């Protein structure tokens, strides 16, 4: 199927999550490239929201926003979730390959783009009293995405409901562990670098 059609398939997925995610994998109706497109769009949406939301609803200090940090944060969370999920599910009889996980999660991010991007424009037409609408829709986008991620995990790995909940919790724990090990590794490496460079200096100056 064409790339454009695979993109269009997302509208079916977000309204029929169970069916949609099942076909996404079995019938090959989605693709990794389409999924990564959604990830890029999500990053774009969140960056746009930080910088371009109207003054009334923008609680960021524009002069101190670093978009690069936000981009990396979103990508990091995305990759961490996928990797942690793959690690746990491969130990727990999950049927999904890492490619399937990446694809499903990318499609699941779509409500963020669908709701939050128009919200950026809508924020210019709302007063503070009408801010409740803004808040509700913003919250809704995250809730929807969370449900989709959940359903995506369930369908990709052919899990039962209880097992999915358990897996999701383990995945979050796993993300923490990966982060911890990563930081530890980073620390140790920097210590080693300092150690080696000190020795080098010591030797040179003698």
């Amino acid at each position, binding site marked *: 199927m064409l790339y454009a059609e695979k993109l269009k398939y997302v509208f079916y997925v977000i309204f029929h999550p169970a069916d949609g995610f099942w076909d996404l994998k079995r019938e090959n109706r989605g693709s990794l490239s389409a999924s990564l497109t959604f990830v890029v769009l999500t990053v774009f949406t969140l960056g746009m929201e930080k910088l371009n939301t109207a003054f*009334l609803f923008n609680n960021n200090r524009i002069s101190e926003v670093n978009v690069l940090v936000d981009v990396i944060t979103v990508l990091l969370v995305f990759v961490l979730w996928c990797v942690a999920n793959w690690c746990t599910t491969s130990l727990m009889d999950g049927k999904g390959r890492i490619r399937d996980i990446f694809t499903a999660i990318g499609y699941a991010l779509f409500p963020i783009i669908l709701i939050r991007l128009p919200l950026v424009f809508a924020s210019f037409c709302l007063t503070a009293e009408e801010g409740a609408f803004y808040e509700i829709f913003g919250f809704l986008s995250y809730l929807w995405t969370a449900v989709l991620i959940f359903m995506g995990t369930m369908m990709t790995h052919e899990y039962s409901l209880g097992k999915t909940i358990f897996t999701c919790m383990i995945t979050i724990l796993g993300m923490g562990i990966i982060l911890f090990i990563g930081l530890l590794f980073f620390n140790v490496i920097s210590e080693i670098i300092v150690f080696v460079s000190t020795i080098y200096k010591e030797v040179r100056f003698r």
Partner: protein
Amino acid sequence: MVRTKYGIPEKRSVFCRLFRMLVRRVLSAFTLSAVVFLSNVSVSRADMPYDTYSYNYWGEEVKEPHSYLYAGMISGKEIGTNLSYPADLFVAEDRLYVADTGNSRILILSMDGMLLKEIGSGKDAADTLKNPQGIFVTGEGHLYVADTGNSRVVEYDENGNYIREIGRPVTTLISDGQEYSPTKVVVDGAGRIYVIAYGINMGLVEFNSEGEFQGFMGATQVSVSMFTYIWKNYFSTQAQQDRMETIIPTEYSNIFVDNESFIYATINNLSAEDRAAGADAVRRLNPTGTDILRRLGQYPVIGDLEGVTFGWNYSSFVDVAATDYGCYFILDETDGKIFAYDYDGISLFVFGRNGIREGNFQKPVSIGLSDDESRIYVLDNTLNSIYVFEITEYGRHLLDAIRLNHMGDAQGSTREWQEVLKLNSNSELAYTGLGKTYLTEGNYKEAMECFELGNSKKYYSKAFSYYRKEVMETYLTGAVIALVVLLFVIWLIRRIVRFRRWVGEVRCYMQKN
């Protein structure tokens, strides 16, 4: 960014700026030499012993031009007799009244610090004072002294003659063993007398104008964290409970009565728990004892935000003085700072400092304002002297803008805010103030711009809702007509297409046959 619209001058040539700088220097030196009238201190703006700052929307300290400059000190040398641990200062029209606690007397000074009269050290037993810690002067010039050592409040007339004493309140609410030592006293417009007494934590002691005890007013509420409560009541033994400090309501540290007979009261011994629970360190009490202080600012009226954020070095308020238009100045003992707030509880500026440089405080205890706020007097308990601060051009414009706005003079207020912006283009306060006048004038677009610069979302929203209405009213009719026309055109095109298809079909049919 250069904003000529708001009265900020555009970029000028270097020479022009240099010239202006020179003129300003000379002028300020001139005014200052006129200002320094007491001791031979030479001070300039650059070496003020403190910074003046205000809090921006994000709660950061932003340095700004000085609102008040240290102008000198009135100490024993100027008065002619030394003070000893003075505890209170009252500024009336053209007099300074000092409670010279250690010497058991009240001194009446001229504004320059010349000794005019001494009260309370007479031989007559009735009017002899003992360690008086509080003083108040009524509109008629009657003097009320909190005679701490003699457990009474004494009234003198305008010539310093003894009139009466108001002794210990006759009530069963205070046990007989309880010590009664009044430390501060005020009298409101109706002649009611309010007293802060040491060790009495039920609020202010209220007497009527006859000196009869009326009751307690404005008691502070006790706030206990849930953890403390449970720990104390369910997990501690009797012996442990006895050793714990009892949780009692906080006492007021000082009071001030404003021109509308409302009482400003400060509290200085708030615990960290109280502060975390959002307890207020300053109150404005109406005659029923209800706190009516307006707290519409971004941050609470709590002094230094740093202390609240990091949980250490809290400001502790020892005195307050208010203007006729609701601005008030609070004196902080911890850092020797003076916090100015407007009638909405929005922080205006902060200045002053504890330290050892000339103009720094050692232990500030009392603050007084001259009639038009042109001078602030601060009494120091350790250095036994009165500090004098003189208002600057910037401070004048700032306070005038607020005063005029309070009086409803929008144009005058706008003018003053523009002057403030000329001197400090970072002033969020001025942008917000300016925006408010644009809002009342109906310049919604400009109002929005100002509120955005002033980071005031509440007013921005208000201006925006009007602006949106204006835009809608202008373009709504046009938009509706355009929509109708568009729909009609679409409908027409579809009809034509359908008609031509039908024609084609007919032709096709006819060709077949």
